[in-house]
Structures are given as C-alpha cells and as structure tokens.
C-alpha cells in the first residue's frame, strides 16, 4: 500500500504544507482555532486509512491527546465540551480498525482521559468518550481489563446499566475483549452480568448484537455458565433463538454463534432435530451475505459441524456442499471468505464418505487445487486442510484420485512454504495422499517430495518434524522394496536413530511407527534396522526402556515383533534388546509392558513373544529358557484371563507354543 508521501510531487507538497499548518493550529492557544483544526483533522481521517497513517507519523495523536487533557483540566464551559467531543472523536477515528492508530493513542496516554469523559454530565461528551474507548477495545492491542478487581467489576456493571446505548456497548466490548479465562467467566457470572446481558437482548439492535457476542464470550467452554444462562430464566434461551430470525443479518449470525457456543459447551442443550436443521439452514443462507456477515458465517458453520457427524449429515442433506461449491466458483473471492469456505468444506468432508464422494463428483477438487497456489497463506493452509479431509476416503485413495501431478506438484511446493502453518497443513495432506494403494507413489517421488519430507524431518520445529515423519511413515506404508530402499537411503540410519531419540515424545512415536512400516511385509526389509552396526535397533531398545507413554511402547514393540519374524540372527538380536536390562539388574521393560493398563501395548508385547517362540525355529527352546529365567513366562501365565479378548487369545497362543517347546526340551 502506498503511503501518501509517494503520489505526484505537486499534489503531495501542497498536501503536506496543509498538514503541517493543521498541526500548528491544533496546538493553538485560541480555542476557536483549535476546535476548528480538530474538526478538520477528524474529517480528514475518518474512513481514510492512508491519512490516518500519515497523521500518526506526523505525530498528530499526541497533539490531540494533549488538547483533550487541556480541555479536561479547564472549567466545563460549552466551548470546552466541544473541544472534548472533537478531540475524543479524532482519537476514536485513529483507533478505528487501525492497529498503528490504537498503539499511538495508547502511547499518548489518552486512555485514562477518555475514561474520565464517561463521568461528564454532558451526554455528547460521554457519547464521544464511550465511542472512542469502544474502538480501542475492538483492537487486540487494548489493555486487558481486570475483572477480578472489585472496583473494576462495579465500573463494568455501571457501564452495562447505563441509559446511554454507546456506554452499554462499551461495557460489552470490554467483556468481548478481555474475558478469556474460566476464572474471569465465573467472576462475571457471579456479579450478575449474565442477567444484565439477557435483559439487553430485548434492547435496541446494537444492544442485542453486543449482548449476544458478550454472552457467547462468557459461556464459551464453560458448562457452568451455560447451564446458569439457560436455567436462570426461561426467556433467555428463547430470546436467543428468536433473534436467530431477526431482520438484521448480523444479529441472526451472532444469535447463531451464541447458540453454537451453548451447544458446543453443553451438548445437553439444543439437541432437537428442529433447531439443528434450523442452524444449518440459517448459516447456509447467511453465507450469501456479500459483506463481513457472509465471511464470518462460514467460520460459524465450521464450528457448528466440527467433530459432529449428525450435523455434518444434516448439512449434507441441506445441499451444503453444492452451496459452498457455488460460492467457491465466484470470481474475486476475498481471502477471508475463501479461507472460511474451504475450512467449512474440510469440516464437512472430515468424517462422512457421502460428503467426500459428492465433493469429488462435483469436481470441487479442482477449485481447491487452485487455492493451493493462492497468494494469501491462510487460504493455502485452508486448501491443504480441505485436501486432507477429502483424501481420508480410502475408496478414492485406492482409485488413485489424488496422486495426480496437478495436485501433487503444488502440494510438494508448499512443503517449502515460508509459513510454518502452511507447511504443517501441506504435510497433513501429503500424509494422507501418499498412503495411496496403487503404484502411483512414484509420482510423489519423481517431483522431489521425498527429499523435502526428509529435509523437514530434520527441521528445528518439532511440529514440522512430527508431520514430516507422519508423511514418511505413510509413504512407507505397504510400499514395495524399491520404494522402501529409496526412502531409507534418503533418510539414512543415523538420522533415523536420532529421530527415534528425539526430545519430543510425539516425534519418537512417529519415528518408531515409520520403522514399523519399514520392517513390515517382505522379510528382506528387516535388514535395514541392522545397517551401520544396528544403531537403529539400539536406539529402539533405549527408547523402550525409558518410554514416557504407552504409544511409544506400542510402536516400538511392533517394530520388535516385525523383526522377530526374521531369521535366527534377527530373533536373537531382539532377545538381546529385551533382556539387556535383566542382565544389568533393572526391571525389563517387557515385564512393565505386560503389566501395563493399555491393552494395545499388552497385545503388541505378546506378539513379539509369539514370534520369538515359534516352535519350528531352531533356537526357540533356548529363548524360552531365557524368557522363563527372566520371569516373563510366569508373567504371561497370569494373563490367561486377560479382560481384553485380543490379549487373552494371543496369550493362549504364546503359552501353547511355550508349552510345546518345554515338553520337547525336557
């Protein structure tokens, strides 16, 4: 965006002269001149971002702030009241939707003076002060209001109880801006704010909107507040539902958002099919609004659908995919609207196959693919998230619908994206797409995807490492030997073993899951974990000994179980890892795993035992002796009636084999 300093010389020089003259007049001692200058400044900056920035740089904000303070200090004559109104209005305009302006106003120290205006007798002064403060509170930069201090809470209540609409609006803005924690939500409930806000639902249009938004802020993720709101008065919830039919689209949207918050906080409310269908239809209708309401409606729609299959089904039946598709086809979509629609589609396709197949049959995929190269990073991220949802479809993955150059090439390019959130989202989509059951994995390898995934697995950012490993793990899934070898050579044994020992447990888990897929299938692939003197196997042994969570144990034990399918050398190597600690005198991790509460971990561990004790293998009997001496056999015997059927079945198989070997050896 050009600053006003850049336009043609003649225009800008006269403009600048005028501006510095204006600055002089604002500082004038003659209150008449000062007043006219303040009004002129106000009229220049209202609605004009460029001018706001220009005057902020010129230092106008401290000058206006000074005028405000001076007028406040003097007797309350009419002239002074006008000065107060004009300077407050100018400060408010600097702060309106413009963060640099908010910062300048706060830095100038005007905040306290604006608050002081609220207790003036002149209504116009109060109005101007409240309006400017509300502008400030609409920015993230506004100072946090401490509700937990008693006098602050009293002041807030006095604002909400005011006759003046702008002042009640200010009270609501403070709540929306500053109420973040459960403690603050509780304090507001306790002070009776819910009740006050409920009564404002019957007020003027702007009060309704402010009240709906504040209520949502206080109730969000706080079941206690939700039930208090619903039970305190029968009318309360009814009023919100009624407002979802209001004439004003913004009010309808805010009412929907409030209802969604109540529902997501306490699933016991708003369960009947009527209200659910109504919310779906209302939000789809609001999407048509050309302004901000339409933009926000898509985000509200996503939060309505999130994790809820029943609502996704209703939305599907209400032709949500078709409607979102229509919006996506429009030219010149604003980035925020674009992002919102993509995220709503992602949510819709996150669980139901019917949604995904409708999505694919309408060829929405092409439009989403276009969004992968959008200039705004939020849009690119949303497109990746959408792609990840749709590619959960095993049917379409099997049909190779996503392994196309048109999708894979831009997606791989996003792995380099300067924004980490785009990279993470792209990795999410890649992880699903590379699962692919056909031979099409080569498309991904050919366009350099593998190299990038390996690079990202060494990133400083643990989230990137996690997601890159996830991609590699899925790429490894059911891959043929050439593909496995390619991945392994790129990744190398040393870096794989250092990923197994990563400081982050969730990265460790993914690295182990990757090795599990590496040694799965063809027996030939077991050789990889023995490369470079078996550093990978040693790393796994170390990690299992210190496993901080069950998931790490599960993945690690499946790796060992897969290796134990191999030849005698492989089986002995696994035994070595299992009994290493017994020889050191500490408790073997295998015993700990067999006693774990996690049935999956018990299953994985028993599988390893089964593979080690297959009676037909030559060394089985010596291994049984070792397992018995380490107390492992007796532990398994205690598990014949394990509550988990799977474990119980495997335990019996293992004991059968051990018995057979024991009989033949004695």
């Amino acid at each position: 965006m050009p600053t006003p300093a850049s336009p043609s010389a003649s225009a800008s020089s006269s403009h600048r002269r005028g501006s510095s003259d204006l600055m002089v007049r604002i500082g004038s001692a003659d209150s008449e001149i000062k007043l006219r200058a303040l009004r002129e400044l106000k009229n220049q900056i209202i609605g004009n971002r460029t001018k706001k920035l220009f005057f902020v740089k010129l230092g106008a904000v401290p000058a206006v702030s000074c005028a405000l303070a001076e007028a406040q200090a003097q007797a309350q004559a009419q002239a002074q009241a006008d000065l107060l109104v004009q300077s407050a209005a100018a400060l408010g305009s600097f702060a309106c939707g413009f963060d640099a302006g908010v910062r300048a106003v706060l830095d100038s120290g005007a905040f306290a003076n604006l608050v002081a205006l609220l207790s003036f007798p002149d209504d116009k002064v109060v109005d101007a002060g409240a309006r400017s403060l509300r502008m400030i509170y609409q920015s993230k930069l506004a100072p946090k209001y401490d509700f937990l201090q008693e006098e602050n809470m009293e002041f807030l209540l006095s604002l909400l109880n005011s006759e003046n609409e702008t002042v009640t609006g200010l009270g609501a803005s403070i709540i929306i801006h500053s109420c973040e924690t459960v403690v603050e939500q509780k304090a507001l409930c306790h002070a009776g704010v819910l009740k006050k806000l409920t009564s404002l639902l019957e007020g003027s249009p702007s009060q309704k909107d402010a009240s709906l938004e504040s209520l949502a802020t206080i109730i969000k993720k706080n079941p206690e507040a939700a039930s208090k709101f619903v039970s305190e008065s029968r009318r309360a919830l009814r009023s919100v539902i009624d407002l979802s039919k209001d004439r004003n689209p913004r009010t309808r949207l805010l009412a929907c958002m409030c209802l969604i918050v109540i529902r997501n906080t306490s699933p016991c409310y708003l369960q009947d099919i009527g209200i659910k269908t109504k919310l779906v239809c209302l939000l789809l209708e609001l999407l048509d609004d050309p302004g901000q309401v339409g933009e926000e409606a898509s985000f509200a729609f996503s939060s309505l659908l999130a994790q809820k299959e029943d609502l996704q089904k209703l939305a599907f039946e209400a032709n949500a995919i078709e409607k979102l598709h229509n919006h996506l086809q429009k030219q010149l979509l604003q980035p925020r609207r674009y992002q919102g629609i993509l995220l709503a589609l992602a949510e819709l396709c996150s669980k139901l196959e019917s949604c995904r197949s409708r999505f694919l049959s309408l060829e929405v995929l092409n439009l989403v693919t276009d969004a992968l190269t959008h200039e705004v990073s939020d849009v690119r991220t949303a497109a990746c998230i959408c792609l990840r949802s749709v590619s959960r479809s095993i049917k379409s993955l099997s049909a190779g619908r996503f392994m196309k150059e048109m999708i894979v090439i831009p997606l791989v390019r996003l792995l380099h994206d300067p924004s980490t959130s785009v990279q993470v989202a792209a990795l999410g989509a890649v992880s699903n797409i590379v699962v692919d059951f056909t031979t099409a994995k080569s498309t991904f390898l050919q366009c350099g995807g593998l190299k990038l995934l390996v690079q990202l697995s060494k990133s400083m950012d643990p989230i990137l490492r996690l997601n890159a490993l996830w991609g590699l793990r899925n790429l490894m899934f059911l891959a043929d030997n050439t593909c496995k070898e390619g991945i392994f050579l790129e990744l190398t044994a040393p870096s794989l073993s250092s990923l197994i020992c990563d400081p982050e447990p969730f990265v460790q888990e993914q690295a182990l899951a990757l090795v599990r897929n590496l040694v799965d299938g063809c027996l030939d692939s077991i050789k990889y974990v023995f490369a470079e003197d078996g550093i990978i196997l040693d790393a796994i042994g170390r990690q299992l000994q210190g496993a901080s969570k069950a998931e790490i144990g599960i993945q690690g034990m499946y790796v060992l179980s897969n290796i134990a399918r191999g030849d005698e050398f492989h089986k002995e190597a696994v035994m070595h890892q299992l009994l290493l600690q017994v020889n050191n005198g500490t408790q073997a991790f295998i015993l700990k795993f067999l006693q774990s509460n996690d049935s999956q971990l018990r299953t994985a561990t028993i599988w390893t035992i089964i593979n080690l004790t297959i009676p037909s293998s030559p060394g089985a009997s010596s291994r049984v002796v070792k397992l018995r001496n380490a107390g492992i056999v007796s532990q398994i015997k205690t598990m014949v009636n394990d509550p988990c059927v799977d474990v119980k079945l495997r335990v019996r198989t293992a004991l059968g084999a051990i018995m057979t070997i024991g009989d033949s050896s004695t």
Partner: protein
Amino acid sequence: MNKLVMNFLVTEGYVDAAEKFRLESGTEPDIDLATITDRMAVKKAVQSGNVEDAIEKVNDLNPEILDTNPQLFFHLQQQRLIELIRNGKVEEALEFAQEELAPRGEENQSFLEELEKTVALLAFEDVSNCPVGELLDISQRLKTASEVNAAILTSQSHEKDPKLPSLLKMLIWAQNQLDEKAAYPRINDLSTAKLEDPAV
C-alpha cells in the same frame, strides 16, 4: 396504527409532519425528532451536490458511520469527484481522485472499477452523450443520498425502511394467495381499507 404512521414519517424524514402528528395523536416517536432534522440536512446536502458539507455533518452526528462503512464512504467521495467534474474543475478533480480515491481503490477491487468509470468522465468532450454519463445524472445524487440516509438510520438503531409499505406489500401478497384458494372479504381500495364481500 398511529405507531405505524409515526414510523413512516420518522423514517422518511417528514419532521414537521411528525411533530404535528405527535401533538395531535399523542404518539411518541422512537427517536429524538431533532436527529431527523440533522439527517435531513445531510440528505439535502448530498442532493444539492454539497458532498463535503454532508460528510462533515455525518461525522458530527456519529464519526463511526463513515469509519466503519467503507462502501458508503467511497460512494460519498466518488460523488464529490463527480461534482468537481460537473463543475469543470479538472485539475482539482484529478488531484482529489489521486489523493483521496486512489488509495481506496487499492484496498478494494470493486472500488477501483467504479473509480475508473468515474474518471472516464474526464475523457469525454460531451459528457451528456458518453457511456458513463449517467453518473452525472441527478439520480446518482439521489442514490448516494438515500445510501447515507439508510446508514444514519441504522446507526440510530432505527430500521432503514418504513414498516408501512412492507405491510401493504404483505397484505397484497396474502390476498393474492387467498384469491386462488378461497372466497373472503377482500380489501380492494387500500386508501379506505374497506372490507368488501366477495361476489357470490
């Protein structure tokens, strides 16, 4: 009924009529009648081509209106440009377009298109006969004026359309629906609202 009439008078800005009606019928308007005067002054300023004056008046009334409504602000500035062109102040018009309107065009694609259309006025010798000549038409002023009027009403928590015309529309629609289904006492003359029995 009285409230409906008052609503109509207030929304349409008939301040004198509203005041008389208040005295005669005792119906209290839902907003301060003085604000109607202010609103009408803004509207009149736009209608007579005094856009700068109108903008200042709106800002005095409520500085938030133009700060939070970029489309309206753009349309007012565009109208200002149109007036400069109408008065043949080419130099000033160009400077104004560059200083004030160009940055808005960069913020919003559709504003840019409208701006291009407006500046195109300067390219024609005979503006009355050019493809964008309708911008100079008086109806453009009226369009802008009613946009401002609606925005002020909304900011005063007042609906921007009077209730009476939409009620009448609903009545006619309902009667048309009924006509297909039943015989009933119908209102044929809206000015007397007399129920007429159906012809048997």
